[in-house]
């Protein structure tokens, strides 16, 4: 109607745009701030010997975290061996075979599982494996991480399988190929890149989990042996060092955090770049 009214609408528009922009900057800024701070704090303590030596005896300066790096690789690798096949296959079930109530129940359960705190999953692994065996072990840690991975991998697999055009499915079926062969040799490879990326992202996600490892993998200051003994892992080592009273350990915690973060970031960035060209 009048000029003042238009001006007010425009002002509100500009104000709200500025507000959203500021919030977006805060969101992105947090990531940069965390990266920069950990980089700054951790870089000074990272050295070749830090990466290749076992921890020094308590109270002595120096030492490294090689056992935690190997331990993390072992636990996360084992978790992947258990979690990825289960997750991918159940994703295949949901996308290719699942109909009706059961499929809905599985999908809903996976989504809710995704939000269950990792410490509760750890508690479950403790009750399932550690308590009966009377021993903390790498295996129990891996099982806990695998349980966390399954719903993530499952939902991701399902989503990528749904992107495969129905015509490809029908073409294969029309040639007289049995259903399972269509699924395993046509559909899954078509969505392969997405499925693989999802699995990698899930691995990166559980590699940073601490809570379920405190009372399953437990930590270990010596070189690890086997899957049935306590084992050191990067996130757990960071936690123990960070709440310790020693200045030297604090620095090592920062350095270990830097390494863990670099790993997770590298996996994330690679996976996303790799996925980009063909994703929708």
């Amino acid at each position, binding site marked *: 109607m009048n000029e003042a009214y238009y001006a007010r*609408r*425009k002002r*509100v*528009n500009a104000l*709200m*745009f500025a507000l959203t922009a500021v919030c977006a900057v805060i*969101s992105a800024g*947090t990531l940069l701030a965390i990266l920069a701070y950990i980089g700054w704090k951790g870089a000074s303590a990272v050295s070749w010997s830090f990466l290749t030596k076992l921890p020094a005896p308590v109270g002595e300066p120096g030492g490294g975290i090689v056992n935690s790096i190997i331990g993390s690789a072992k636990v996360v690798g084992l978790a992947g061996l258990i979690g990825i096949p289960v997750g991918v296959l159940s994703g295949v079930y949901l996308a290719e075979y699942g109909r009706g109530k059961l499929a809905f129940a599985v999908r*809903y359960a996976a*989504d*809710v599982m*995704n*939000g*269950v*705190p*990792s*410490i*509760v999953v750890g*508690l479950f692994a*403790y*009750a399932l494996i550690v*308590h009966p065996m009377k021993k*903390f072990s790498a295996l129990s840690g891996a099982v806990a991480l695998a349980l966390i991975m399954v719903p993530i991998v499952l939902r991701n697999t399902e989503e990528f399988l749904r992107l495969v055009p129905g015509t490809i499915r029908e073409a294969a079926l029309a040639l007289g190929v049995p259903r399972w062969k269509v699924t395993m040799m046509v559909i899954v490879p078509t969505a392969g890149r997405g499925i693989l990326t999802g699995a990698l992202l899930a691995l990166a996600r559980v590699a940073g989990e*601490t*809570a379920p490892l*405190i*009372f399953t993998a*437990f930590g270990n200051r010596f070189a690890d042996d086997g899957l049935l003994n306590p084992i050191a892992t990067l*996130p757990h080592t960071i*936690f123990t060092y*960070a*709440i310790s009273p020693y200045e030297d350990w604090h620095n090592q915690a920062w350095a270990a955090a830097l390494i863990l973060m670099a790993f997770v970031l590298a996996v994330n960035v690679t996976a996303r770049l790799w996925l980009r060209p063909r994703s929708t």
Partner: protein
Amino acid sequence: MLTAGLILAFMILPYITTITREVLLTVPRPLKEAMYGLGATRWEVVRGVSLPYAKSGIVGGVFLALGRALGETMAVTMVIGNNPKIALSLLEPGYSMAAVIANELAEAASDAHLSALVAIGLVLMAVTVVVNGAARLMLYRLQRRA
């Protein structure tokens, strides 16, 4: 406790951002274009069309994120102070369910202690399952409509 709250706020921020973005992307273009066609400003379109359309999805996403914050363990354990008392002030140290489990389970010696910790885990799980279950249903409802 204040520190723990701040940390959690920053930790759930990305979840809320991504979910909100995805939900807003499902808003049909014609609805927005119709609004622009009537001469609305950008903000008026967001307020009048996008937000109401995506409301249940955004609320669902927020609850999903809160569910995560509820069970977040390590970051909270490190800063909350681990004090087994109910403090009135936000600036006093406190304790969270997840932190109790994280601190005590590996050292629980007696069966009673262990059972108590597992019971805390059960309560924590029940709360998060309810929160997540409700949030997911809200998100599903939006997906079906889209």
